[in-house]
């Protein structure tokens, strides 16, 4: 596969890893207190686990998984609102596969389907638009979620819907903006992040300038990274080099895809259809200012919440679960008391265990049995202490 396989070349990966080991030895970090590199994108989390990149890093470096999975940061109450809309007999509720099993208080969209709601998995919002055209007597609702990567896609779909004058298509808008998240993360006292791997595909839309505040206001280096192993290893090396030379800037490793200015056509489409509006709630991070995204007045007719008025739900997480801590990198998935016992992919407490690249799901899928000795030790400690 062109432009994919070359960036998975094991020999080049080995070269990068060797170079990393050498350079990392010169860092003011140790295995006990490693340099913490946060990746804020589910695609990066997935790649790390799939290729075992964290196992290949030198001991002075560590990945922490940040809240870059838009499914994982969804407040549970929003799923309940979706299920309420889906339950309308004339609604066809369309969602990406990622969100189908995320639990709300009253269950997931999959549960809603089992109870008779017409919930369909789509691969693209254009599929939902097509359903609207083909089913004029039904109301088609598209669950729009994602960061800036998917935002322009929903925007273009809505522009199309407006051009066609469709009255039976609407979106449940759960898009979120990345930059306010990063800012909020950096403002938390107890989160120690030394450097960032920025999501390549969000950057392809927004460009690299929006990250500068991370260098200037917070003094952290950042590299915009692609998703193949060579991309990520090279990006980590670039971060290490920055630290070695005491520089602190935004660099672009993913130049083949990310233009410095981003995608202007996409930015225009976003501007026409969406606006940043007030604070929005994020699981694990609470309310983040100016992070909510809603439709502009011109497109407000396509707002599913206006059309269906579901009850606003505020649902608190189970106090035992540490979803927020895992999301902000404060703890690893298996350190949550519910991990693997009360919370499994089959019976998940939160989205991190259900979303295919949620940190907990990834850990469970790829590392579960390896952690068993650690868990047993923990249980033993608890038994002795209790």
């Amino acid at each position, binding site marked *: 596969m062109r432009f994919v396989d070359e960036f998975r070349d094991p020999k080049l990966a080995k070269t990068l890893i060797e170079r990393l080991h050498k350079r990392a030895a010169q860092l003011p970090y140790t295995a006990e207190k490693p340099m913490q590199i946060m990746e804020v994108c589910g695609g990066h989390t997935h790649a790390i686990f799939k290729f075992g990149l964290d196992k290949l890093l030198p001991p002075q470096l560590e990945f922490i998984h940040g809240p870059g999975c838009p499914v994982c940061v969804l407040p549970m109450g929003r799923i309940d609102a979706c299920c309420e809309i889906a339950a309308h007999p004339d609604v066809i509720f369309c969602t*990406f*596969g*990622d969100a189908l099993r995320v639990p709300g208080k009253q269950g997931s969209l999959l549960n809603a389907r089992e109870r008779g709601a017409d919930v369909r998995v789509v691969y693209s919002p254009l*599929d939902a638009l097509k359903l609207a055209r083909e089913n004029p007597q039904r109301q088609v609702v598209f669950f729009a979620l994602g960061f800036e990567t998917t935002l322009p896609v929903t925007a273009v779909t809505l522009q199309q819907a407006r051009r066609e004058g469709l009255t039976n298509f609407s979106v449940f808008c759960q898009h979120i903006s990345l930059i306010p998240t990063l800012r909020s993360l950096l403002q938390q006292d107890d989160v120690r992040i030394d450097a960032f791997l920025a999501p390549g595909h969000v950057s392809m839309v927004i460009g690299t300038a929006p990250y500068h505040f991370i260098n200037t206001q917070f003094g952290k280096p950042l590299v915009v990274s692609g998703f193949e192993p060579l991309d990520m290893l090279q990006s980590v090396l670039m971060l290490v080099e920055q630290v070695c030379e005491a520089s602190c800037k935004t660099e672009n490793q993913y130049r083949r895809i990310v233009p410095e200015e981003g995608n202007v056509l996409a930015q225009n489409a976003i501007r026409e259809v969406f606006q940043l509006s007030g604070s929005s709630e994020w699981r694990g991070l609470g309310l983040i200012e100016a992070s909510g995204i809603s439709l502009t007045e011109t497109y407000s007719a396509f707002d599913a919440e206006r059309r269906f008025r579901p009850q606003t739900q505020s649902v608190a997480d189970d106090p035992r679960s540490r979803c927020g801590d895992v999301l902000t990198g404060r703890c690893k998935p298996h350190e949550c008391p519910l991990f693997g016992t009360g919370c499994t992919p*089959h019976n998940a407490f939160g989205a991190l265990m259900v979303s*295919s690249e949620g940190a907990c799901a990834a850990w469970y899928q*790829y590392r579960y049995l390896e952690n068993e000795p650690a868990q047993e030790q923990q249980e033993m400690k608890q038994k002795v202490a209790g």
Partner: protein
Amino acid sequence: MSERNDVVTMAHGSGGRAMQQMIERMFLSAFDNPWLNEREDGARLSLAAMSEQGDRLAFTTDSYVIDPIFFPGGNIGKLAVCGTANDLSVSGAIPAYLSCGFILEEGLPMDDLQKIVSLMAQTAREAGIAIVTGDTKVVQRGAADKIFINTAGIGVIPGDVAWGAGQIQCGDKVIVSGTLGDHGATILNLREQLGMDLGIQSDCAVLAPMVAPLRAVSGVHALRDATRGGVNAILHEFSEASGFGISIDENALPVKSAVRGICELLGLEPLNFANEGKLVAVVSAQAEERVLNLLRKHPLGADAATIGEVTENPQVCLRGALGVSRQLMLPHTEPLPRIC
């Protein structure tokens, strides 16, 4: 009141004339064999004839509820013959007789039923399998999805063949007979209306002729056909049953490039995709080369490859592109396309 000939009606399941006519014209004429032609309630099969071939009977059953019922490479009827025949083959038996029960939804077009039955008959005939007994029921619209088929099959296992997960030993090699996921990718594309021009089709096929020469090879320990749940499911079954683990090399998996494309696009793994004409064989290291050669000689096994080995450590693991090993878990439900 005229009879509608173009769809299946409740009358066709009622035991009356409509049903008799349908059975005669459609099933009996298509499946035509001496046992069926006796038109008794059940087929009578000669024990003596069977005893000459071996000393155990393999007996298996499966139900087929696939949607869509027609797909590139076949239809539900062909699947119903292949699936059950293959279950017999992998137990070491020579597939000989099938039963077949139909549950038809009121309103199913007769043309569709005819196409399905014809392909069933053709597939069975070409494989030397006789469909010797059957049953037909019709249920009201909505009580079944178009057509469900159950087939049960029997075949004789020759005395010197002893395949089973209990035979698996540490150090054995794990071989697949061909490319992974062709069937699953084809069906996914159709069912989810992904509209992709894949250029591949279901690999649905009777494996008996490819399996036959393996019976003479000592060192063949266990065979399974990889259907729902993909090769991943089989690896876990083998591991569970034998108490050993299996380590698979991701680079060694034979995958057609269109299947790889659909997996990359949707974030899925070919190991989890269904197959309908592939088997997984666990063989001793000494037998590996011979088995690969025998498989590759047959058109259905042209892409046969060793994908891993049996290990002491009782986990199913995948050695990735960069050499790092990770656990391979079974997805607890059908994997959904993801966009993240």
